[in-house]
């Protein structure tokens, strides 16, 4: 079974840098994820949104990579948000307590609205 390596596109919405994630978030994803996050930081927004719509697999190594991004966001006083997670990965974000530190939204629209009002 071929690994679907992660690709990421970074775009700017009002007040939010959005990372469109496509593929698998696993050990292979580290370079792409960190490079995209750095590109998002360069947009100089206070909020960065991880859009998981194109992601169908996250393993424990991927969880660790997301923890790393969250640590970077906290260190630079940015908010990290997530949207379009499947029901299963919402559960995993809950049991790992990631959702205590990064708000999870059902879709991009609600996440961007939240980012614009706070």
């Amino acid at each position: 079974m071929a690994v679907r390596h992660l690709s990421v596109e970074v775009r700017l919405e009002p007040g939010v840098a959005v990372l469109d994630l496509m593929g698998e978030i696993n050990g292979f994803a580290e370079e792409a994820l960190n490079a995209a996050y750095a590109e998002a930081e360069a947009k100089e927004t206070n909020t960065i949104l991880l859009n998981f719509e194109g992601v169908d697999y996250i393993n424990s190594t991927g969880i660790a990579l997301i923890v790393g991004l969250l640590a970077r966001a906290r260190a630079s006083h940015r908010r990290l948000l997530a949207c379009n997670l499947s029901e299963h990965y919402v559960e995993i974000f809950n049991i790992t307590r990631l959702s205590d530190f990064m708000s999870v939204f059902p879709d991009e629209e609600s996440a961007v609205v939240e980012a614009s009002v706070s």
Partner: protein
Amino acid sequence: MTDRKPARTDADLRQTLAEFSVPSEPGNERLAMETVAEAVRDLDIRGENLERLKTAVAEATMNAMEHGNKYRSEVPVEVQVEVVDRDLMVRITDSGSGPPPAQAGDVPDLEAKLEGMQTARGWGLFLIKSMVDEMSITGDDGHHTIELVVHLGAEGGK
């Protein structure tokens, strides 16, 4: 005189659904995960319960490939899928030596990880324990086996 039916034995209640192996190569946990999902397709494991099982199998296979077999591709991870009575049992065996990994599976301290006081990794066993009804790890001089149990039926899965 009436014929007496023989008592049912464990063998009567045991059904092997799949036995296979995967090379210890990064990414092959998905192959194990999808093969187990296919093996249980006729069981009453659907939706979120199936997703939980798949995550547990993937994480257990990753642990076996990484910690047991040190990602030596020529050393396979063996997977056995059985139904025993009303339990689905998935056993994942590596060729690791030494004592089996601790199975305490404490809840990882996310705050400590975010503050850089702990490695960001270390989620695997915790996820496995969270995804299935029972988990145990056994081992001898040349193997470790992690056994995942899902209770079938209306209450099956977590």
